[in-house]
């Protein structure tokens, strides 16, 4: 165990896999000479050379598609898409090709590839550079989507993604890169498709992923002071979705709040709330409440951006309100 940053954990996982398997290579914009827009691949070009750390032209569709084709021949490309916003330009290659090839050809070709890309707002990047559109991938059969919220998960989920034979999108987050935490020194891939209880609690279940899973722990910590015992479910895998773990928790606490960084209507949280309301129907003592981003193109101006993004305070408000609703129905 050592305490490292989320960024370092991603870097270590990539480097370890590059050393372990020569079929693994990195491809994307500015990952080599520039050392990565967010420096996840710093030092990689110097260590592995331009064949395995391939800078590309600005052509998301072209180089993502090229990675898919290379994967069809047995390589294991790890694509960096600078931010998830730009992945829309490669969506046809990902959704209509990477996610379809195994099934559409009757199981004859595999696409063992990883797409790494950060989501997240909060840095005044404006409407087109601050989106959370992991939904576009989590919705698609044939895709796998993981969303680490801690350095430990960043490493173990990245390892699992690279060793998986299907296209896996690893959702990173701009606001998490500098966060730190304990990470095992040895390589231990996580199991894709499993959520985790990151905090045991008796009073209420908070379900979240990526940055909001960290926010959930902060909220739980603050509420513990007031004797409110929050259980936190970190989804970790958006597709497949681990409904069992969510339901088991809510059947224990009898109420739930969902935290998400994307827009509320049709967002990831809608499925979580629908799943809970169905699977824990006879256990639920209050409606499942969702905390999400305001449904607007995110403005640049700081006060507007701050108001639009979900915060720890918003989470606490929703948790309290839900417990009140339980009490009212008591």
């Amino acid at each position, binding site marked *: 165990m050592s305490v490292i940053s989320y960024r370092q954990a991603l870097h270590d996982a990539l480097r370890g896999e590059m050393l372990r398997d020569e079929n693994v*290579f990195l491809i994307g914009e500015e990952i*080599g*000479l520039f050392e990565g827009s967010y420096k996840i691949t710093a030092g990689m*070009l110097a260590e592995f*050379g*331009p*064949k395995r750390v*391939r*800078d590309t*032209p600005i*052509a998301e*569709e*072209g*180089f*993502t*598609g*090229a990675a*898919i*084709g*290379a994967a*069809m*021949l*047995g*390589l294991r490309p790890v694509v960096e898409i600078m931010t998830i916003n730009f992945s829309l330009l490669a969506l*046809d*290659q990902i959704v*209509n*090709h990477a996610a379809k*090839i*195994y*099934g*559409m*050809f*009757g*199981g*004859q*070709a595999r696409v*063992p590839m990883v797409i790494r890309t950060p989501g997240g707002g909060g840095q005044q990047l404006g409407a087109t550079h601050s989106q959370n559109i992991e939904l576009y991938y989590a919705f698609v*059969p*044939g895709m*796998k989507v993981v969303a680490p919220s801690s350095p430990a998960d960043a490493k173990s989920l990245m390892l699992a993604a690279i060793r*998986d*034979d*299907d296209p896996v999108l690893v959702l990173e987050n701009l606001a998490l890169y500098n966060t730190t935490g304990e990470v095992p020194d040895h390589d231990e891939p996580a*199991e*894709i*498709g*499993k959520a985790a209880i990151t905090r045991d609690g008796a009073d209420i279940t908070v379900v979240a992923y990526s940055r909001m899973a960290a926010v959930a722990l902060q909220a739980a910590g603050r509420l513990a002071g007031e004797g409110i015992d929050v259980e936190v479910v970190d989804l970790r895998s958006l597709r*497949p*979705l*681990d*409904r*069992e773990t969510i*339901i*088991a928790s809510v*059947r224990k606490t009898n109420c739930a709040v969902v935290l998400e960084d994307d827009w509320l209507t049709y967002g990831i949280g809608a499925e979580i709330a629908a*799943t809970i309301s*169905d*699977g824990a129907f*006879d256990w639920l003592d209050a409606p499942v409440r969702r905390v999400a981003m305001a449904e607007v193109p995110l403005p640049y101006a700081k006060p507007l951006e701050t108001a639009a993004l979900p915060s720890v305070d918003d989470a606490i408000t929703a948790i309290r309100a839900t417990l009140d609703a339980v009490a009212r129905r008591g």
Partner: protein
Amino acid sequence: MPPTTRTARSSPPAGRQAAGRQAAGAATNDQLLAFYRQMVLVRRFEERAARAYTEAKVGGYCHLNLGEEATVAGLMAAVRAEDYVFTNYREHGYAIARGIGPRRVMAELYGRVDGVSRGWGGSMHMFDIASRFMGGYGIVGGQVPLATGAALAIDYRGGAEAVVCLMGDGTTNIGAFHESLNIAALWGLPIVYVVINNGLGMGTSVERSSAEPELHKRAASYRMASARVDGNDPAAVYEAAQVALASAREGRPYLLETVSGRLKGHSVVDPARYRSREEAEALKAADPVAAYAVRLHEQGLLTDELIARIDTEATTEVAAAAEFADASPHPDVSTLFDYTYATPVPNDSRRLPGDALFPPPPRPNVAELVQMPA
């Protein structure tokens, strides 16, 4: 500054240089005859496929190679067994010429388990790993980045294979074409892009869709070598393809444009009313199969008897293919969830539309809960 991928280009892998050295050769008489057999087989197959469609044995979209037979024969003869072929959805002929039996291609049209894609792909999505036929694709331009990536994999491993990526004339106007050719040229990848110019994208002529209608010239935007060849002449296509492949094997990607006609509509259901009677007549007059027969006849390579025999053989073979297809079983519904993921993971959904997310009884205890389908 560390070496860039660009410099890597100047020195193609040993294997590839060797491969490149063998010069392009003209077709032998045997090959000229083989082209004809191939062309007739494709012609008869497509006619049979069209009939099967009207008999409702085939569904979905169905695009035929009628008029493209000479290009099919010439191109596929130049491609080596170890090379990889990517195409669009108009690929029946290429699949057959690549060595996939007409039976398995027809069975795919019928959507049966013996189909080349196990019935999961249909007319637009033929795939056979054994013959390195890497798929027909229905999204215009979709195969172009994929094929480029296959060439990247070959380059990565220093292999001597090449990739052939087929597309239509209309496909040269989509972004994926531009991004892919730039990447291939920049990195010196072993790939030949072949534009099958049949003059039309559905009902839109090349002149109405491409500001530079001499499509092979678009290679200049990438300093890529290119050529245009008569797609109605299998020998010419064969020779041009060999030149292109030799260049690709040496790390110089190539753009080859073949010019031929589309005898029928865009797909079997398109009456092609947008085409004038004159145009249709002219195309029929220039039918590459008939014209090539006349030519070989003049050269003394074909006799009336041989023409008849080849025709009978082809007709028999496609009839047998249709029988085989019709006899092949439909995929069982129990296999519906077999090909969503290559690596099994927990909580993958295997629900049919009517299934409940959480089946009753209404109050399972947590022990039962563990067994519930996620």
